[in-house]
């Protein structure tokens, strides 16, 4: 195979949020970059079948609901209807295609070579690229062999399939859930995490009766109870049935429907639905691409072990995003991508961020960064906590969305902000201010002494800081 070896400078496997950002940054820093992507489009799960398209469906759901019921504001319309094919076309063509096209253009602009195919690692310095698609067999002579100086693994993650729920045309994963051709009448969602709950809200808005089966006592368990309870109340208002402590047992494809059996306290129940979406989590893509042929070490949880620069146990191989420890979030991958690309280029970069913000696009939105009150308690850190409700905020009231609150967690003796949570209108956007504050280790006083414009949804952050320094204003 020696005659068929191409030598490359920096090779990146995967063009998701981690991969494409690493490519751009590495190129900006003077590297010669090649990305290997197995699917037809760039952008990975996030752009194609994750964060971005789900936001489109959520928007469509909101618009439909507003169109249907704005009588509170004195607006009445004749019955609003939805052409879901058109909704999907808008999502695919105007949202997803536009974003992935944008990424493709950026890669081109940065002279990143894009190879379509599946990468298989041979060693710490060599891989083969095979044409994408199913294969009967593989032999060592197949594909194009590439010798690389640096490699960044950005292979991402994929949905977990559970026993008794083999994916088919009725039992679907989140990708299937985003690409439904029709709005299901009955929609069962197994797993009430952030993906399941977001889509539960979207499809409920779009007209489905949604049933969430969640194994733990609460939906969206990674957010605090006082935040989630607001979301839960809203979902129930939308008509969503939430069944917690539910163990999904099996599914049966009935051709035009699916029967789902679950147990609560050992008592089995079977419900029928048009579709059953399984969103119980994701697993890292660390298998099936020859990683075992390298000296890259995995953690006990099967994630790639990396140092503060994203370097694996092999000096010239870096790993970023979902395959590394920490939350599987696109923006974490963005950051790690820049760190790894910098490290390869000899920069003193480090993943020394404080707090990875997490956002859930429910109604209302949930967002959190840094420590929660409970985290601080678990770590034995003495904190003071301030909470300001959106009910006291003019903008929230004028939006008719005065639900929720802003919560700030500060170190008790110093006032340094350690974390913040927001549940309420615009939480996904507002959390950025708290991300800056936490990552810069600002003091509550710094926030309190910063003018926040009026009337906006951001004011409760300043109000909460006022509470922390002992001089609350609007409460």
């Amino acid at each position, binding site marked *: 195979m020696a005659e068929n070896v191409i030598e490359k400078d920096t090779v990146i496997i995967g063009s998701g949020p981690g991969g494409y950002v690493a490519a751009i940054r590495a190129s900006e820093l003077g590297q010669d970059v090649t990305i290997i992507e197995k699917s037809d489009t760039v952008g990975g799960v996030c752009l194609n079948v994750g964060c971005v398209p789900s936001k489109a469906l959520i928007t469509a759901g909101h618009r439909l609901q507003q169109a249907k019921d704005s009588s509170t504001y004195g607006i009445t319309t004749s019955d609003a209807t939805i052409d879901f094919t058109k909704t999907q076309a808008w999502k695919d063509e105007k949202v997803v295609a536009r974003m992935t096209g944008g990424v493709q253009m950026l890669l081109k602009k940065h002279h990143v070579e894009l190879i379509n195919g599946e990468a298989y690692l041979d060693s710490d310095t060599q891989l083969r690229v095979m044409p994408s698609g199913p294969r009967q067999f593989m032999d060592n002579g197949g594909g194009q062999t590439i010798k690389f100086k640096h490699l960044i693994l950005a292979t991402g993650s994929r949905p977990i399939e559970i026993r008794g729920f083999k994916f088919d045309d009725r039992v679907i994963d989140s990708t299937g859930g985003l690409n439904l051709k029709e709005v299901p009448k009955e929609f069962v969602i197994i797993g009430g995490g952030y993906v399941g709950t977001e889509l539960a809200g979207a499809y409920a808005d779009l007209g489905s009766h949604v049933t969430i089966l969640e194994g733990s006592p609460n939906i969206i368990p990674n957010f605090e109870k006082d935040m989630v309870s607001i979301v839960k109340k809203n979902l129930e208002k939308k008509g969503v049935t939430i069944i917690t402590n539910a163990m999904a047992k099996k599914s049966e494809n009935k051709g035009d429907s699916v029967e789902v059996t679950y147990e609560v306290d050992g008592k089995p129940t079977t419900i029928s639905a048009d579709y059953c979406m399984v969103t119980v989590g994701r697993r890292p893509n660390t298998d099936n691409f020859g990683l075992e042929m390298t000296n890259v070490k995995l953690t006990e949880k099967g994630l790639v072990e990396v140092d503060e620069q994203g370097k694996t146990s092999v000096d010239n191989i870096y790993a970023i995003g979902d395959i590394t420890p920490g939350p599987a979030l696109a923006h974490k991958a963005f950051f790690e991508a820049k760190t790894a690309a910098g490290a390869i280029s000899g920069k003193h970069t480090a993943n*020394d961020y404080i707090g990875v913000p997490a956002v859930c696009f429910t109604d209302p939105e949930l967002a959190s960064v840094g420590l929660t009150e409970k985290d601080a308690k678990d770590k034995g850190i003495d904190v003071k906590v301030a909470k300001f409700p959106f009910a006291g905020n003019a903008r929230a009231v004028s939006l008719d969305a005065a639900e929720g609150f802003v919560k700030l967690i500060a170190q008790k003796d*110093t006032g*340094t902000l350690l974390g913040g949570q927001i549940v309420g209108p615009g939480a996904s956007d507002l959390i950025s201010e708290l991300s800056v504050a936490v990552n810069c280790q600002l003091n509550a006083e710094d926030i309190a002494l910063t003018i926040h414009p009026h009337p906006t949804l951001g004011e409760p952050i300043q109000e909460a800081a006022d509470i922390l320094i002992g001089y609350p204003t609007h409460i």
Partner: protein
Amino acid sequence: MAYKFKLPELGEGMAEGEIASWLVKEGDTVKEDDSLVEIQNDKSVEELPSPVAGTVKQIVAQEGDTVEIGDTLIVIDDGSPDTGDDDQPAKDDKEAEKSDSDKTTESASKEEATAGPATGSADAHYLAMPSVRQYARDKGVDLAKVTPSGKHGQITKADVDSFDGSAAPQAATQSAAPAAPASTNTITPYKSATPELETREKMSMTRKAIAKAMLNSKHTAPHVTSFDDVEVSALMANRKKYKAIAADKGIHLTFLPYIVKALVAVMKEYPELNASIDDSTEEIVYKHYYNVGIATNTEHGLYVPNVKNVDSKGMFEIAKEITENSQAAYDNKLSMDKMSGGSITISNVGSIGGGWFTPVINYPEVAILGVGKIAKEPYVDEDGNIQVGNMLKLSLSYDHRLIDGALAQNALNLLKKLLHDPDMLLMEG
């Protein structure tokens, strides 16, 4: 059962030595006080006697090995009862110590890594903005050691800057030390465009000791050298007269004993020449003994054994000791004691044809007399007549911190007087 003989302290703060040669081998029977080994340290070779009687079980340190105080050199089976600690074969013991110290190094470096520049570990954040954290990484500054000046204890970019400029007290020196040695100690590697035309060899311990001593002397004592010459026909005649008598006694009489004797008289007149400076207390230490060192060149290095208490010794005795000392130097058998506690040193290059030169003081002494050859040169005698004189070249280097030029010249004048008229030595010496 087994006695482990460890390198004892050799005095003068010597921390290590080299095994020059073993005088016993494994299986030998040794008596107490039998010489076991010759240890070469900086400038001397010491024979170490056995503290016990027994059979040599194992020679642990090999010839050429550098050993430190406390290192086991040899194991002697002395028939004593087992004590838990001594039961271990010496080699194992040494290895155990080594791995122990390895462990220490390892854990030390681990600690260093933990305390190092802010890393990805979320708990290792110091109160600093992300841009300041990046700036510190770029500059290699460990935020743990930076004194914050910002409100609420924030470390600012300026703090990192001032730390890097080592303005931050104490902490700065601490961190700078391991990273880069103090600038005075910076070692510039010797680079060559034609290394193939050169060879390299390790400096011997003696060479290193000489280099260190010379550097220290030149670095510490501001040297001034006064040159002079003196007509020594009478001295030559005297020596000629007594040379044979000395030879009968088995003594080789050179000019050196005369010069030694003359120096005693000079030192008595000018005690500053027989002194040292204690920098730590800013005191002048006057010595009330007269130990005159003679620089001795050997094939394995330069040594300065001194003849002790020359003021109370006769010329023959001094001559005899000079010969013995130089023989010991040639044989590499000088003890440390012979080379310490000197008053002043004589460096003689005249015997090999040298003239005036600028000898380097044998610090902490404050003066050294360079003795050149005796050359036949025109010379104006006391009566104003030009004669063929036997001119001895003298070069006196002295530590100007203590000795000023006039004093040095006056001392030289007296020395000249004594060497010009050796009868004066009877009076003054």
